[in-house]
């Protein structure tokens, strides 16, 4: 049973990581990264590492996508002014 959860979590991680690489638009990439963060947190919980899962949830699920979105906004604003 526990092995099944780990296998499913591993497949989800591989899937969302591949999508994160294939998506080219940075805004969508940020959202996919957030999903990847949550899925990784599930995987870490499944392999009995709740401490790491919490870090992953906070940093990968919230902080990294947020910083990415802010960076994208800055770049887009500059482009908008140049036009």
């Amino acid at each position, binding site marked *: 049973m526990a092995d099944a959860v780990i296998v499913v979590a591993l497949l989800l991680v591989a899937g969302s990581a591949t999508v994160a690489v294939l998506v080219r638009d940075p805004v969508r990439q940020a959202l996919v990264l957030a999903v990847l963060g949550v899925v990784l947190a599930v995987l870490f919980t499944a392999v009995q590492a709740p*401490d790491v899962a*919490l870090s992953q949830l906070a940093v990968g699920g919230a*902080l990294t996508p*947020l*910083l990415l979105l*802010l960076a994208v906004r800055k770049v887009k*604003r500059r482009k908008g002014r140049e036009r």
Partner: protein
Amino acid sequence: MNPRTRLGLVAVGGTGLAVLLVAASLRLPDFGGDSHPYGDRAVRESLARHTANTIASVNFDQRAFDTLGEMTILFAAVVGCVVLLRQTRDEHRARPEPADVAPPVRRYALIVLPIALATGLYVIAHGQLSPGGGFQGGVVAATALHLLSLGADYRALERIRPVGLYEVGDAVSASAYVVTGLAGLVGGTAFLANTLLPYGTFNTLSSGGTVPLLNAAVGMEVACAVVVLLARFLDQAVEIEEESGK
């Protein structure tokens, strides 16, 4: 270097890395086995020091010096960000326009904000007892504050977030970690050694000797660091504009 040589170089490096990784993995203990030599020792040590969460014991007691290094890395990264993202001479600040937020989003943000903040503080405070600790709780608490820009507006966020104070807090808590370490040295044992304070009653908030102190210092450091980091990014994304004609 033409693309072909570059590709060749990547292929050589990648193959080498793959071979080494596979060779190293083959010698690892089996997945899910019942022999954990390092785990057993770490658990024994953490029980001896009355720390219920073995991970906290590893982070803030057995490997407290490693954590000092990690904290310093975060501190240096934030200092670097502050320097890179500062307002330069050819930039000016524009007041951000109030943006429309859908009422359900606003309501949700205001309901979740206190819960998230309390969760963050709880995770910091219980680092030595249950999964979590200063780093995790610090990130949660710091990001929770930013829900205010959704729930109210950006200016309300700026009012509860005087960046200067958080920068000072960042430095103070980073020094608090070092000072706690030095206290161990002055107390007659070694830098960051957990021998100074009584270990307390197992599984209570004050148990674990210096573990809760170091944990709290890291919690404050991380929370301040994330607030400062996000403030600089928000400044650049929302307020700072280049002078026209540049």
